[in-house]
């Protein structure tokens, strides 16, 4: 059986009983979500954990004695931008849920009606959203890089193209001049110049191989409605 990916989940609640209850629910889902669980009693403690070790997901209670969980979301995300935050709100508190999502939470759960299934769904959903965002950012970076390479190579190919004709003329005329009846000194000068022109022609042909260069990944613009394709990592 292949090794499962190991996630770290941070439980943030000032109520130790609630943290224990949530741990029990997570134990039920341990097969589907194999988490290492870390606990924090308030936002400040949670931030310390996030700054100290990699955390994949935070289950964050809003109503804590040390302050609102909501206010900690931007601080958590500033410390770990790829963190999947799941907000835990009181029943009927949709406003907090909406506010949490605006601040960067990926999902929310209602305290009191949490089940192992809803917990698993919310965590999975939040992690998937973060993964999707990371994939999009990677793709965007790859496309920008490919475009940059393409523009540079095109500039190079154009410059090589422009050198072609002057080199052709230099090479041709020197060949023609070599047929002239000249004193040895001048003949030698032409011979040296012709040798340089021949070498120049060879060098330019080698430079023109740049036409075959393709940036990797070389993706055509998908255009409106086009599919976004994941660029395989090296």
């Amino acid at each position, binding site marked *: 059986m292949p090794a499962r990916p190991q996630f770290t989940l941070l439980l943030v609640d000032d109520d130790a009983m609630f943290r224990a209850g949530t741990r029990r629910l997570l134990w039920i889902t341990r097969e589907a979500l194999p988490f290492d669980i870390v606990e924090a009693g308030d936002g400040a403690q949670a931030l310390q954990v996030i700054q100290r070790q990699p955390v994949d997901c935070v289950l964050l209670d809003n109503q804590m004695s040390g302050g609102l969980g909501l206010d900690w979301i931007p601080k958590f995300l500033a410390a770990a931008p790829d963190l999947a935050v799941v907000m835990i709100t009181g029943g009927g508190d949709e406003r907090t849920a909406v506010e949490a999502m605006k601040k960067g939470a990926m999902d929310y759960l209602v305290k009191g009606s949490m089940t192992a299934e809803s917990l698993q769904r919310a965590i999975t959903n939040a992690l998937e959203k973060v993964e999707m965002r990371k994939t999009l950012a990677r793709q965007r970076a790859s496309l920008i890089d490919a475009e940059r390479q393409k523009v540079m190579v095109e500039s190079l*190919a154009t410059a*090589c*193209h*422009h*050198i*072609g*004709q*002057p*080199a*052709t*003329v230099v*090479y*041709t*005329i020197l*060949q*023609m001049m070599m047929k002239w009846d000249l004193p040895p000194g001048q003949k030698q000068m032409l011979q040296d110049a012709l040798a340089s022109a021949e070498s*120049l*022609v060879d060098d*330019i*042909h080698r430079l*023109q*191989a740049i*036409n075959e260069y393709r940036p990797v990944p070389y993706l055509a613009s998908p255009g409106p409605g086009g599919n976004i394709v994941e660029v395989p990592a090296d």
Partner: protein
Amino acid sequence: MSLNDPSGAHVVFVDDDLYVLDSMRRVFMHMNTPWHLEFFANPREALEYVKHQPCDAIVSDISMPEMTGFGLLAEVRARHPAAFCVLLSGDFCEADLRECEQWGYVFLEKPCSLNDVRALIEAGLEKARQKEGA
């Protein structure tokens, strides 16, 4: 503009880059070929010319804005099937090379020697003459 021997073989040069065209004109002028030379920066003008005039050989660029070298040569061959065709390009491209082989055109990648281009045209004209005489 025509150069050299009006009674000689008609050789047409086409390149939209005026610097390229002018340098070809100068070099071929110095070569003193026994040919009647014509130079065009616009492939459509070249085509108009070959509709009414003989064309024994043509040397053209491939990438041109109004018409590609391949398009032009197809039209030239339709009117002058024996015309010797050379495509001269500043960019090597495998697909262009294959297309040239398919149509029996000579593909030359710049930089090259225009003395070689001249020698190729001479050989091509000689071959056409022998074919005509046979």
